[in-house]
């Protein structure tokens, strides 16, 4: 039992943080929230440092590492509110193609994913009817009604945009017709790989939520130290202290659940579903609570579009609601721990 990240994993975290400080500044995130196009360079840099191939076997140019190695990187993606489809492309799609797709499809796409040449949008039924960033995807992985996963090209779908809370990413319904030629495998054969992809995705988003929460607590701390009212920093008031301490409490006790989910996904333990859902529940609740505390501490200034906070809050809300919402994951934990619900 050794529950901490090793030196090499921490150094990945440091590298991606350095990269995102440059490529994913709050100003850049804000610009995209206000409608600017996503800069291609950021995705390229992420590929160069190996972030997109982390979970992809070496024969396709990936690093062949595990979710444990990815956890701190994903946390940084949250901390910087990275808008790019890192989870869908690199965490869900890459390994899913590796497990499920025929060799020709694998050879066409996987190396491209690892190399930053392909963005993939994902529509798994467990995650609801919407597909994020389908407009900028080079490939869509979509599940049909029977459960089979299809690799569909953008030209073969019609997108209906749904304006939503997170202006930095775009939400769509996808109209498409499943064809035998697009199916990666049959529904029955897909089930195991899809279940793994669902858990991998939900874990990855949990890690992002930790980072989002961290950053919002940091924002609130900065504000509380500098903003003065009644002749003293507002952070010296006990109401502010305790509000932020409680937010930190929730986050710090969500953290081990998320890190453990990384392990459970990486090792495919029997309790994987339970562990991922517990992580998603608690990371979602903690990130949203951190946002609410940060907003209350900021007061009116935090309620403005000009301040960064709303972007982080909205990203957290959307990620908490997506990839299986809190209710879905809570019920999954209960089912795993207590058996089927009683009627």
């Amino acid at each position, binding site marked *: 039992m050794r529950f901490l990240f090793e030196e090499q994993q921490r150094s990945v975290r440091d590298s991606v943080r350095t990269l995102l400080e440059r490529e994913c500044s709050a100003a850049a995130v804000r610009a995209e929230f206000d409608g600017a196009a996503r800069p291609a360079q950021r995705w390229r840099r992420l590929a160069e440092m190996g972030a997109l191939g982390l979970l992809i076997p070496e024969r396709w140019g990936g690093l062949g590492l595990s979710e444990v190695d990815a956890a701190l990187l994903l946390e940084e993606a949250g901390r910087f509110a990275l808008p790019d489809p890192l989870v869908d492309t690199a965490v869900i799609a890459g390994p899913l193609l590796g497990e499920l797709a025929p060799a020709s499809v694998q050879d066409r796409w996987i190396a491209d994913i690892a190399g930053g040449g392909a963005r993939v949008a994902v529509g798994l039924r467990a995650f609801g009817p919407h597909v994020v960033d389908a407009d900028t995807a080079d490939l869509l992985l979509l599940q049909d009604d029977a459960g089979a996963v299809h690799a569909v090209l953008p030209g073969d779908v019609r997108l209906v945009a749904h*304006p939503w*809370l*997170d202006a930095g990413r775009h939400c769509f319904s996808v109209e498409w017709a499943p064809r035998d030629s697009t199916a990666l495998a049959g529904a029955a054969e897909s089930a195991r790989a899809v279940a793994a992809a669902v858990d991998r995705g939900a874990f990855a988003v949990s890690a992002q939520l930790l980072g989002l929460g961290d950053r919002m607590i940091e924002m609130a701390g900065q504000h509380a130290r500098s903003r003065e009212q009644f002749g003293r920093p507002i952070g010296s008031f006990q109401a502010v202290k305790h509000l932020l301490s409680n937010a930190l409490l929730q986050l710090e006790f969500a953290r081990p659940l998320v890190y453990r989910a990384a392990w459970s996904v990486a090792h495919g333990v029997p309790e994987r579903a339970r562990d991922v859902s517990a992580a998603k529940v608690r990371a979602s609740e903690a990130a949203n609570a951190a946002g609410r505390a940060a907003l209350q501490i900021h*007061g009116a200034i935090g309620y*403005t*579009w000009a301040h960064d906070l709303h972007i982080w809050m909205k990203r957290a809300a*959307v990620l908490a609601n*997506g990839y299986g919402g809190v*209710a879905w994951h809570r*019920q999954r934990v209960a089912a795993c721990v207590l058996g089927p619900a009683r009627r």
Partner: protein
Amino acid sequence: MDLSFTAEQEAFRDEARAWLEAHVPAEPLPSMDTAEGFAQHRRWEATLDEGRWSAVWWPEQYGGRGVDLMHWLIFEEEYWRSGAPLRVNQNGIFLLGPTLLGAGTDEQKARFLPRLAAGRDIWCQGWSEPNAGSDLAAIQSRARLSDDGSEWIVSGQKTWCSRAVWADWIFGIFRTDPAAERHRGLTYIMLPLDSPGVTVRPIAKFDGEPGFAEVFFDDVHVSVDNTLGEVGRGWQVAMATAGFERGVLLRSPARYVEAVRRLGVLYESSASCDATVRDAVAGAWMDADAYRLHTYMTVSRLLDGEPLGPEVSLNKIFWSEMDVRIHETALRLLGDQAMLDGRWLHGWMASLAGPIFAGTNEIQRNIVADRVLQLPRGA
């Protein structure tokens, strides 16, 4: 105790309901934080005034009906039930109105109130400043008398002025005695926003709409006739109604009763089998009902001649937290549709401001602790 309404009250309710059914716009108006929406909301204020519904509890001579606050609650129930628009002049009607009625001269009442009731003047408030938020007494914006004593010359900056972007007038408190500190030496002044020297800079809020603004004053001249109440006692003038009627008027219960009714409709349509959400919906119903009944109690006491005390700070905490809970419950019911643009999502964003504005809930809890629970003042 009598929890039924009198025949006269029921007749009043029927009259309001009939008028609203005939006049409320069939389609919701665009957001009042857009130019077009603001204009349409202003027209709605005029329509309301034509029916004499703008401020029913004001004296008739100023555009009201001279009825008591219980009638106002009944009107509000019908108003929210009817799906009528939000009140673009709410700061004028619910914040300035009572202060004018209490502290204004007859000339001021006649000059301002009828135009206010008719939406000809839309008002915004000027309380907060960049360094005076929770600590409102730290106000620095100044007004000095002109040499002939006929005008105030106002300089400084107000901020978080809701609806100031398209409003006509601003009311607020300004430091008129530069030597006085904190709550002393402040004066309550009303200014036209088109005065030379006024600059309004919109601030986009959480949802991106310019719902409030900064207002800059650069030697703005305004007649001393626009002083409300005694010079140097602006804090007292503002707070006299702050404690008294704001606890009741700021958020009428009908707003939440209607929100919970819509929540019930959403529950009906959702087919949700999640008993924890069902429990939250029932909890929201109890919240709204408790707030409605609490307000009946408060108004009954007022009509019985009892003064209201600092306990009205509890109201602000309660409705703002309830509002968040109602909307969070709605988002839970909406499931994977929750994050898509829509009325509940926008209502949720709006609800998040509740615990902050009109005195943060932390300030309200301090007031409750110090003045209701009589705990010792803190450091």
